[in-house]
């Protein structure tokens, strides 16, 4: 936890510095009242201050040698299966790239198949693909045909 606080603290201080720098480029006060830079300026300052409140104790505990305790809470274990996390997110990214070119049914079938395999690797490929295609067609029919939401057709005629 100490290391994560440290990483988070550093990240948010940096974010605060970036937004502070950017807000200084905006007008702080205009003719009639606060300008576009007013809010971001103060928010950045508060962000930096609060991040330091998290960062400084984390630094102290790290120096006291408390940084290497293993995470005991099962809920907080991170990246035990990187494939599941990045595969899951990657599949969605893949859909974002493919969606408008090849259409909803094919790209969603791919994503759903990937998810089935990620969650249950021992599930056979043939069944996973079948599940993906059937689920994608069902979702497409429900939302596009029944509820009238315009989903990209892509290369398929439906």
């Amino acid at each position: 936890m100490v290391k994560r606080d440290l990483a988070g603290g550093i990240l948010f201080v940096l974010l605060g510095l970036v937004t502070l720098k950017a807000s200084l480029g905006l007008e702080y006060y205009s003719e009639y009242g606060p300008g576009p830079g007013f809010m971001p300026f103060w928010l950045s300052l508060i962000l930096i201050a609060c991040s330091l409140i998290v960062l400084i104790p984390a630094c102290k505990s790290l120096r006291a040698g408390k940084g290497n305790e293993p995470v005991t809470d099962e809920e907080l274990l991170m990246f035990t299966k990187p494939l599941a996390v990045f595969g899951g997110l990657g599949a969605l990214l893949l859909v974002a790239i493919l969606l408008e070119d090849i259409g909803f049914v094919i790209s969603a079938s791919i994503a759903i198949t990937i998810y089935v395999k990620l969650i249950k690797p021992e599930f056979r490929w043939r069944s996973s693909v079948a599940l993906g295609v059937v689920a994608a067609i069902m979702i497409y029919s429900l939302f596009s045909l029944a509820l009238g939401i315009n989903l990209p057709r892509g290369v398929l005629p439906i």
Partner: protein
Amino acid sequence: MIENLLIGFGHALSPYILFYTFMGTLVGTAVGVLPGLAPSATIGILLPITFGMDPLSAMAMLCGIYYGAQYGGSTTSILLNMPGESASVVTCLDGHQMAKQGRGGVALGIAAIGSFVAGIVGTALLLLLGEPLSQAALAFGPAEYTILMALGLSMATSFGGRQSKAVIMCIVGLLMGTIGTDSFSGINRFTFDVIYLEQGLDLVPVLMGLFAMSEIVSEMEKGIVKSPELLAVSTRLRDLMPKLADLKQSFGPMLRGAFGGFLIAVLPGIGATATSFMSYAVEQKLSKHPEEFGHGAIEGVAGPETANNAASIGAMVPLFTLGIPGTATAAILAGGMLMYGLIPGPLLFQEHTEFIYGLIATMFVGNVLLVVLNLPLISFWIKMLKVPLHILYPIVIGIIIVGGYSVNFDPLDLVVITIFGLLGYLANKSKFPTAPLILGFFLGPAFEANVRKALIVGRGDMMVFLQSPVSMVLITCIIAVLLGPTIVGFIRQKNTSQYGRTG
């Protein structure tokens, strides 16, 4: 008011709206029963899909999901010792013990009755409080509104986890709200010449990423939980009906849960989960036999289950009357209302009387539907628990693709979902709470607009925020909220070091 309510019921009972209320409660119960799918995430996923519907049926459905989930959540807590959603965690303590002692049916029954009592009391209170509060809010100027929003935001940071982390997330949310073209000056802020960002980030993809995607990948990582052992429970209606003695014992806890849960949840930032824990603690204190708690005390089910349901309705009060959502779920509903062209806030009661009273009426109807759904259909919900994860999550991801894409019909929104999915995952694992971020992000633009308007009125003098007595009271509250937990924590630390740890 009565007249408005009657018109509201007229809308709520029309077949079209009744159907969507029913769908909402059905989906809500399912989401409540299934562990790993939070009501907030579900509402976020389904929000874009409702854009084509008329506002009342859409909101009736989405609200139905919210309070329906509180009903459903108790089922798995009692039968499996596995809370379906966070507000039912505390129900596990006594509910599961009751099931082990063969009183599972009674526990399920009392949970459903408690939820129903809460639903009716909560909706009635919402009806009574709504109009007067919104009238009072109409008198507020930009300075008072600024302070009020600041109070709402600071309360949202003060529950659960370290407050400094919550404040950070809230500020990040506010900063995210400044992305895009500034409405006062027309200048682009933080857009880095990306055209997509000029409109500002959309609420829906952000929360789909933060709440739904992060949760799904995190559950996928944990892997398939072995099929949990179901306690055999008789789901015949006769066995679900609590005995008169049970009802007598539960009467007090239910009443306290319904009123207490509602009133506490009216304060922004305190959601159903916190109130259920508070109710449990109160019932244990008041009980004549506190030693039974944790070993199947019926009060330990009746109180929290009533409180969490009342709280889910109480959380609507600040949203409908002040336009300030108190919980992440309320912020999502608020985002939905904005998209239907309804601005959440005091004017709802003046300008959209039919909508707001219709919605309140659907809540009455929905709560009746839920009792009907829950008592006889419990065996069906238990069967649904057996849907394997490798079927459930892939289908959910399919629906996320539909929802995410149909916000603006722009695949870039799916990229935003992915990015915030990863950020949400990292934040959850590092105990940086994501709810304050969503609240800050939602309120950000209105907050900034009010600050700037107030300063224009006050000709740049910061004292404008301190001029009215209302502001002074609110500022005192903000200070108490921001510093209170630190002081309480300090005192508690002192006490534990003096007397040693108990319990």
